């Protein structure tokens, strides 16, 4: 019974690796995750449901990029799921506020 979730996670990890190999550019992966987080944060200003929708839209951007780079359907789905979950978790307004405040703080 306990093996099934682990196997599932292993499969997702394997397909995520395929997607990351297909994109072959970690900067682009990070950029897509940040974009998804911003979309989730903007949606989160309206409500929890819209935050989820924003995260899903960000995940769909990852999906289309992985497919365009030749990653295949399953890899694109796994990458989309990972980006959606990450964006939903990270893309909360307080987190964005912290980043903004840090960026506005005078250096030196």
């Amino acid at each position, binding site marked *: 019974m306990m093996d099934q979730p682990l196997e599932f996670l292993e499969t997702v990890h394997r397909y995520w690796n395929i997607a990351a190999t297909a994109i072959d550019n970690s900067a682009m992966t990070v950029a897509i995750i940040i974009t998804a987080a911003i979309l989730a944060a903007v949606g989160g200003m*309206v409500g929890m449901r819209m935050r989820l929708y924003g995260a899903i839209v960000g995940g*769909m951007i990852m999906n289309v990029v992985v497919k365009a780079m030749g990653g295949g359907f399953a890899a694109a789905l796994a990458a989309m799921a990972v980006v959606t979950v990450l964006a939903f978790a990270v893309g909360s307004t307080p987190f964005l506020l912290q980043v*903004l*405040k840090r960026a506005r703080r005078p250096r030196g």
Partner: protein
Amino acid sequence: MLPEWYINLSRSSGRAFLSAWSNSDVAVVAFGAFAVFIVLATMLASDWPFDVAFLSLVAGGILVSWPAMIVMTVAAVVLTLVVGGLHSLLLPGRNARISAEAKARVTPALEEFARDAGMSAKGRSRARISLGARSAEGSPVSEAEVKRVLADDDSGTPPR
């Protein structure tokens, strides 16, 4: 039963994630569901048809290849614009009410975000304007709200 051009298109569009279906089959079904439910969402002004429309577009997007995804997204945006435009032309009063409700829901969150992010000058002036407009309209403005805006004003004044 299906027209010849569609059968040719279906054959040339390649296999979808569901191997029994082609990309164009999935795209047509998903976009059809999106079109029906986005029109329903506009007519009923309720949330659940919008949810179904969005999820059908997402499901369709997952199952088709990337060019079909882009075509579906562009078609969905165009359809939403057309439906929204028709709605505002045919039922302007209802459209204005829905827009005002949406604005009322989003504006406080945006103002709070601007204030918390330290975009104080803009946030404060917006808060003051909205407070003034509401009091001019005769809407009730609580004392606590006035105090909050004035306190923000004081805290934003640079020390001399």
